[in-house]
């Protein structure tokens, strides 16, 4: 299972579709976090940064606070440029710029981390 966390539902659906895998969409970080802690562990999370309510970094901080969630690979999906930031300690394995990304790039991450 792949999680897509983005407050823009249409963009989230585009990302979900491109993965060609089973996905769940969340429009805010709290919903996604609750689902992780109570239910199944996602194999990969596509995460927007600017979200309604707690932002993407708050979500990342939450994930690294627990031993069972700190290893979940995260792909940042944002219009802001984080390519020069090293966020690997948060489990971030890649960055996708919303203005430039392609379905193929999204699929490659899904293929690699959510076999």
């Amino acid at each position: 299972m792949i999680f897509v966390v983005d407050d823009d539902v249409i963009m989230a659906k585009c990302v979900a579709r491109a993965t060609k895998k089973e996905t769940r969409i969340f429009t805010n970080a709290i919903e996604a976090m609750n689902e992780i802690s109570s239910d199944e562990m996602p194999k990969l999370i596509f995460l927007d940064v600017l979200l309604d309510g707690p932002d993407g970094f708050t979500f990342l901080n939450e994930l690294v606070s627990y031993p069972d969630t700190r290893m979940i690979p995260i792909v940042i999906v944002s219009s802001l440029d984080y390519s020069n930031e090293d966020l690997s300690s948060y489990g971030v394995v890649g960055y996708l710029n919303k203005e430039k990304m392609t379905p193929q790039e999204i699929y490659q991450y899904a293929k690699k981390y959510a076999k």
Partner: protein
Amino acid sequence: MEKEVDGILVAAHELKAPLAVLRQLALSFDDMDETGEHIRSEMVRVSERAIKQVNDLAKIRRLEDGLFEMEPVAVRAVCDDVTRELSYLFDCNRRDLFIKYSNRAKLVTANRELLYSVIYNFLLNAMHYSGERTRSELIVQDYLDKVKISIRDFGPMLPIDVWREIKRGFIEKPTSIAMRPGSSGLGLYIASKFSRYMNAKVGAVRHRDGTSFYVELPISKQASLFE
């Protein structure tokens, strides 16, 4: 004043989000026939162009923060990248683009990102003002201790008030030259703002059959890897 400017940044972000979604939706279509592929490609390019313009507007706000560093920039490589990006648009609009490089100095002192936008906007402006099957020209040459990038169109003569503004060194606000789509003068305004930030001289020459806009950039003293 500060609130108003920040409002532009917020508006830019709000505008970019749906454009990025539209682009992604266009890319999400499965295999299509040739016509469908063509439409998809057009949708993606139009969205990307609009995103670029919104990004440029947001950059104007960030100029005040001094975030754009000046560095040695390979001027021909930037021109090549811009013309490659715009060649499709020139083809679609049945415009020709003539390119001539005669500059010996390869590096100028500029910010690559801003210089890219200056050339991009001047070329887009030239394309809009040129008639069908007429050409626009991009000429790069040495000029004293500078490199001069000129973009010439064969459209209507530049109004004298706009020319005066450019001669003064910058354009205060977008000024429409003709009531046509893409003719709001926004591109010239953006190019003027970015050039000013880079301490580059911007100018325009009024021809009987069109206009040349140019930007002069100081040659970088750093040894060029290309020489």
